[in-house]
């Protein structure tokens, strides 16, 4: 699986020729460079570090993806414990942290 290109859904439109052209340029490595972001995921103390990164047009797009991914993580892992914190930390291409999105899941017995 090759490290990735933008996942902006608008780019998958029917008139996707712009996307195709950009993608082709990127495969030939002659296109404009797109920033790469690294997404570490945290489930409590359990960390999965991303060493590969994904290309996004900007931090906004990366942020949206982190939010979607967080919801997907929640769907997969939230069983059992009564309190859990899931998070995704985004690092920029110099590997400096730039954003953290987190989700706190809590179950309380009411009687």
């Amino acid at each position, binding site marked *: *699986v090759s*490290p*990735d290109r933008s996942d902006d859904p608008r780019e*998958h439109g029917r008139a996707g020729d712009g996307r195709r052209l950009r993608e*082709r340029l990127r495969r030939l490595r002659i296109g404009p460079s797109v920033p790469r972001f690294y*997404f570490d995921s945290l489930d409590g103390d359990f960390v999965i570090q991303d060493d590969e990164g*994904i290309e996004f047009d900007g931090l906004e797009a990366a942020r949206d993806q982190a939010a979607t991914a967080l919801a997907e993580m929640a769907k997969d892992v939230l069983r059992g414990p009564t309190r859990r914190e899931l998070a995704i930390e985004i690092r920029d291409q110099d590997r400096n942290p730039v954003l953290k999105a987190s989700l706190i899941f809590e179950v309380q017995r009411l009687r």
Partner: protein
Amino acid sequence: MVKSVGADQDIVREGSRPTECCLVVEGFACRYKVTPGGRRQIFSFHLAGDIPDLQSLHLKVMDHSLTTLTPSQLAFIPHGSLANLMRRCPRVADVMWRDTLIDAAVFREWMMGIGRRCAETRIAHVLCEILVRMSAVGLANGRACELPVTQTELGDALGLSTVHVNRSLQELRAKQLISLKGGFLTVLNWEGLKEAGEFDPTYLHLDNQVEERVA
């Protein structure tokens, strides 16, 4: 008549009325549809030997699109020739029918994944499927094969965000089940990956020997 086609080129588009079917001779293709909001769903991956749009022989208007994912060699068979061939050789007609049935079996398995399996299981499953299918057509080297799909494409196929695909792949790597390098997949632990993907190759209806080749 074999044509060279670049990566990410639509072969047949939704709504069109094709007069020929496409045989993948070399390369990687997929069938997909896009929501009005622009989100893509990939239905299946296709490799050498597949005729992904065989159904256009009987269903006149395409209800989805077919595109290459990598530079490919494609052969086009006119509908008339296919129909003639099937009339003359009932054995071929049987094989084509069988092919469309297996096609549907693969969809059922993908539906199971998208509806009921978690991300890591979905990914492990599709990796098992690709390796076994590549092996069936002699394109695998033991437990290794080309995997020319991006994480975004995997996400579009499995209904997952690229970030979650990325994360789940890291997890499969950390468990020493697979290694991925330069578009190449190597399965380090076949039994482990099968288990992680809840993969039972029955739905592919292949010769038993094919799985033994990877096992």
